[in-house]
């Protein structure tokens, strides 16, 4: 594979109903091969039930310089956390 091969980000859903989680990336020339490579690299030990691959270039990321203005304002607002509620016993994955 040539060095210019596209990089794809890989997301695996471990079980139906759970969110897809980022696990890493693969090189591939097209989407079918990306999916195939992701399957081979990241689901060899029963990790998943569904795979998403997305071209890395399509992911928009915040940069470290944004950190303060993006995340610090949330620090002193505890009332935004749902910690004042009792969770019902039946609620899962929270």
């Amino acid at each position: 594979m040539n060095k210019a091969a596209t990089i794809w980000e890989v997301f695996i859903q471990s079980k139906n109903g759970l969110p897809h989680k980022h696990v890493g990336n693969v090189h591939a020339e097209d989407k079918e091969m990306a999916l195939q490579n992701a399957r081979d690299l990241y689901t060899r030990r029963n990790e998943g039930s569904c795979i998403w691959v997305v071209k890395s270039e399509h992911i928009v990321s915040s940069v470290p310089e944004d950190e303060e203005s993006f995340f610090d304002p949330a620090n002193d607002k505890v009332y935004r956390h749902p910690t004042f509620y009792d969770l019902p016993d039946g609620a899962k994955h929270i």
Partner: protein
Amino acid sequence: MQDLEKYILRIADSSLILSHRLSEWCSKGPSLEEDIALSNISLDLLGQANSLLEYCGKINGTKTADDLAFKRGEREFFNFQICEQENGHFGDTIARQFLFDSFTLLFFKKLSESKDEILSAIALKSIKEINYHLRHSSNWVLRLGDGTATSKEKIQNSFNKIWKYTGEFFEMDQLDLKMLDLKIGVNNNQLKKEWDIIVNDTLKKAKLNRPEDGFMMTGSKNGIHTELLGKILSEMQYIPRAYPDAKW
């Protein structure tokens, strides 16, 4: 040797020897991704061979799967000659794999209807794996065939070179006929039609020419092989022969 034992060995040996061939790619693949893909396929084939050899050992009563894998000589191996052919370049490996996958998928589908419950169970489990192998190999046939002028030329040559080893897939000897009669075995001859469809279709999509069915190699049903099998065995069997019954 019982008939059933020999029939199973034929199937097991093809998986085992091709598994060994593919394992030679480990750490030498064209990319990290492909290195792992080929090793995965190799391990699937090893798993199939192991199940079959264990079953064979059980019928035999005195030999284990390891005995069968590591303590037989060339003339006692019955794998298709295509399985022992060299990896060559990546296109050579893909051509060999594609032709083998498309045959074994059809073969195991039929074998899953076998009256022998264990053979049928092993076949059912293997079909899932082979479906994936075929998807992998045919995807590469399409990309190499319909890729650049160089990749096209290379994989066309790969198919031309390996073609003469595909005749063995469809041979039926006395033993095969007997197993077919007992509703244990498969009619390989009948698989040819469907195999032609899969192969022709993929080659056409890949803009490759199907080589002519000319002279075909034969002999593996009777333990006749190309010189390559001996070299594989000397590597594969070295440790168990140098340190018999070593455990890890």
